[in-house]
C-alpha cells in the first residue's frame, strides 16, 4: 500500500480548487455564445436575432403583435388578442418556455444555449 502524504493531497486539491475558480471567472468574463431568438408567424420564420449582440432595444412590428427585442432577452410587448397571455408571460432569456400567442399564431423561442434551470427543476 503506497502512502500518500496529506501535504500532497492538499496540494492536489488546492490546485483543483484554483483551476475551477479560474474557470468560473473566465466563463463569466469571456463573451458568451450566441443567444438566438426566432420569431415565427403562422409557422413561418419571420425574424431572427442574436440577443447577445443586440445593443439597443428595438420593437419588431408584426400584423397583430409587437415584439420587444433587448440585450439578452425578448418579450411580447403588445398584442391585439383578448387574453394577452403572451404579454403577461414577460421577458424570456432561455429556451425553457417559448412565448406563444395562440390567437395570432405567433411563437417566440430562443434556440441555442440552454440554461441549467431547464432541467434541474429547482
Amino acid at each position: 500500500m503506497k502512502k500518500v502524504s496529506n501535504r500532497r493531497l492538499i496540494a492536489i486539491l488546492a490546485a483543483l480548487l484554483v483551476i475551477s475558480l479560474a474557470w468560473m471567472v473566465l466563463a463569466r468574463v469571456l463573451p458568451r455564445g450566441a443567444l438566438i431568438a426566432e420569431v415565427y408567424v403562422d409557422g413561418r420564420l419571420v425574424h431572427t436575432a442574436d440577443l447577445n449582440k443586440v445593443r439597443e432595444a428595438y420593437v419588431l412590428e408584426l400584423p397583430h403583435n409587437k415584439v420587444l427585442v433587448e440585450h439578452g432577452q425578448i418579450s411580447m410587448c403588445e398584442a391585439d388578442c383578448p387574453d394577452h397571455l403572451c404579454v403577461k408571460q414577460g421577458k424570456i432569456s432561455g429556451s425553457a418556455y417559448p412565448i406563444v400567442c395562440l390567437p395570432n399564431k405567433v411563437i417566440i423561442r430562443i434556440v441555442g444555449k440552454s440554461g441549467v434551470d431547464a432541467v434541474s427543476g429547482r
Partner: protein
Amino acid sequence: MNIRRLTSDALLSVIALTIFIVEAQIPLTFAVPGVKLGLSNIVTLITMYLLSKKDAGAVLFIRIILGSVFSGNTMALLYSIAGGALSYAVMCLASSTLSEKQIWAVSIFSAMAHNMGQLLVAALVMRSSAVFAYTPVLIVAAIFVGAFTGLCAQYTVLRLKNLRLK
C-alpha cells in the same frame, strides 16, 4: 454471508436511508441548484472502512434505490445511480491508497466523481454538452461538501473501529 454482517449491512442501510430522507426534507439550497450536502455518503464511507468495499457497495445501492422509492423522486434515480456508481468506483480506488486518517480526501474525490457522473447523465439526457459549463462549480462544491462529510466519517470511523461489525 454471516448474520452479523447481514445485520450490520441492514442497519447501516437504514441509517443511510434515514439520513438521506431527512436531508431531502430540509430545504437547504446553496447558491447553485443541484448542490447538496450528501450526508448519507458518510454512512457509505464508514461502511467501506469498517466493513468492506462490497458491503459499502451494497449499502450505497440499497440506499439509492430505496431512497428514490421513498422520496418519490424516481426521475432522479438515473442521476443517482450514475453518480453513485462513479463515486463508488473512485471511493474503492482511493480507499486502497489512503489511510483511515485521510477519509476526508477519499470523500472529496468520490464527491467529485459523483458530480461528474450526474453531469454525464445530464449531458446525455439533454443531448447537449452545455451542462459541462457547470463542471467548475461542482468541483468547488465537491471539495467543501466532500471535506465536511469526509471528516464526519473519519471521526466516526476512528471511534467505531473497535466495534465488531463483521
